[in-house]
């Protein structure tokens, strides 16, 4: 079928948003632009904003950004395609990202990613048939002391195993409430994108959810306060140690 073959020919201009959607997004865009001395700085948050409307960055969304900011669509496209958080095709409500950078990979991230692919029947950057879960592998997410780490809609799921990760995606697909180890109860990818556009999460309890620092963040403090026994178990070179416990 010839229509399957992309010749890279220029496309017709993208259709615009319906008037009511455009009016609503224009108001949000004004709030974003007002944060910056120069309007072009609003482009990254605005791409998050159009992603919150449609779940991915569409040609319509990019044309909207260009129009509002006085840029060409080429300028907007160049930016949208540079950053990995902007999705370029329709995707699921929940983006499940398994860290497979070296430390998490070694600690089990590779195994988790492989088992999730098999369990969900999808490959990297693919979505389950029910439209719920998009699986991808991600780079280091600054939580190495909680390895292996899985991010769902950019909330932290720390110290994962293949079993915990499989149960979590099952719960997501079944519509059960899923709570991260650090972060707020999951909202959809679109709702997350709106927070990323700079609009605070208005859900009651979202800011304080899961409390203060995670357990690994506190180990040094607890040692310094004498709240954890001073342990000497295994020397770094593996010599046997006579001193256990205190």
């Amino acid at each position: 079928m010839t229509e399957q073959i992309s010749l890279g020919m220029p496309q017709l201009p993208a259709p615009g948003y319906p008037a009511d959607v455009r009016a609503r997004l224009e108001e949000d865009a004004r709030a974003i632009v007002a944060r910056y001395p120069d309007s072009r700085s609003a482009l990254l948050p605005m791409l998050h904003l159009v992603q919150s409307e449609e779940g991915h960055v569409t040609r319509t969304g990019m044309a909207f950004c260009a129009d509002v900011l006085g840029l060409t669509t080429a300028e907007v496209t160049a930016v949208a395609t540079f950053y990995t958080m902007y999705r370029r095709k329709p995707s699921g409500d929940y983006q499940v990202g398994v860290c497979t950078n070296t430390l998490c990979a070694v600690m089990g991230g590779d195994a988790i990613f492989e088992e999730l692919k098999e369990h969900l029947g999808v490959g990297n950057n693919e979505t389950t048939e029910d439209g719920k879960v998009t699986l991808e592998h991600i780079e280091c997410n600054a939580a190495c002391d909680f390895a292996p780490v899985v991010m769902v809609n950019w909330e932290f799921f720390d110290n994962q195993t293949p079993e915990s990760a499989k149960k979590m995606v099952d719960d997501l697909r079944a519509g059960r409430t899923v709570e991260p180890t650090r972060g707020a109860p999951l909202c959809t990818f679109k709702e997350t994108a709106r927070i990323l556009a700079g609009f605070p999460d208005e859900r009651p309890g979202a800011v304080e959810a899961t409390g203060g620092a995670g357990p690994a963040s506190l180990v040094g403090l607890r040692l310094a306060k004498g709240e954890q026994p001073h342990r000497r178990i295994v020397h770094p070179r593996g010599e046997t140690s006579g001193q256990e416990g205190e």
Partner: protein
Amino acid sequence: MTLATEINNGSSSPEKLLAPVLSAFWDQPDSWTLETYERHEGYRGLRKALAMSPDDLIAYVKESGLRGRGGAGFPTGMKWQFIPQGDGKPHYLVVNADESEPGTCKDIPLLFANPHSLIEGIVIACYAIRSSHAFIYLRGEVVPVLRRLHEAVREAYAAGYLGRNVLGSGLDLELTVHAGAGAYICGEETALLDSLEGRRGQPRLRPPFPAVAGLYACPTVVNNVESIASVPAILNKGKDWFTSMGSEKSPGFTLYSLSGHVASPGQYEAPLGITLRQLLDMSGGMRPGHRLKFWTPGGSSTPMFTDEHLDVPLDYEGVGAAGSMLGTKALQCFDETTCVVRAVTRWTEFYAHESCGKCTPCREGTYWLVQLLRDIEAGKGETSDLDKLNDIADNINGKSFCALGDGAASPIFSSLKYFREEYEQHITGKGCPFDPAKSTAWADNHKEVTA
């Protein structure tokens, strides 16, 4: 190092070796709120700063010896001093919260548990450099932290620490929280500025440096989160208190992030100059039954160390003298079950993925490194590939605009230096001799059997 050994034998008491300052009240309920922060002497440093003249304040921070905690270790006060005064242009402070260096995990927990320490530091810094608009460039992939920053900024405006005429000082200050969109390169300060201007995050050629032509071509200070968050305590408790910790050239406290095959991964705040041996001794060492094989002192871009380097003082000079860099103090520890070729291959794939594509040596070099490394890991390499790896890394190192290329070369050079035999084993044995299942966090948990 006999001296270090003596000190180690003398005391490895965590109460004496650790110094929680930024992390001091992370265990308190609602640690992220303004109320908790104020109860722990929050915003007192700001009041002291506002009583000084901006120039005196810059001199004070300079005299404290605080050095950048984002990797390079440049003196923070000196960065502030470079901002030309009376030039009639707006000045900007941009906080680099794009923490993405593999292994680095200090700013994210800091901002999650104690965001006001950063905000207080921002107000102090803006008063010093005469800036009325600051930005926090937070990587986008950490929404829980973004929520707390939104809330902390709202609280700070409501309490009069931000906005018009801060605490009656005459300082007007706007603070914008800006979420990135997924690009490691935006942690490089000039790429970050381009990104904040709404462009692709590609590093700029320097000079001009950001202090002269930064955000919107105006004088700009770009500082790491931890650097700025350390300033309020210096003002509140005094520079003498600060310099009483660490060494003469690396004074103060800092967050060390222990991760990997250790018994107690996590954050350890200590005076600069503590050793990995001391940190491991107090925290339970490696995971039971295993020994340290290799580690990074400051993220994947800093040349790796082995168990020969356990007593290297973890400060800027100590790590430098041992052939690496302090970087972000991201101590990723790998035990004897870990294949170094696998580790380096994965890091190199990361650099290839994150190379912005601007400079040819980095864009092309990282691509070819990945091809060679994948072949070697799969047992399809040749002995001559090892020299080729070294040669390509040499053609990247120092030959691109920014440090991403240098970072990509570091794991190659250092792993070939310490573990060349292991590469050769992959080539002569036509495969990887390691079992990845033995490296996982659950490998020694015999109750759990995975398919």
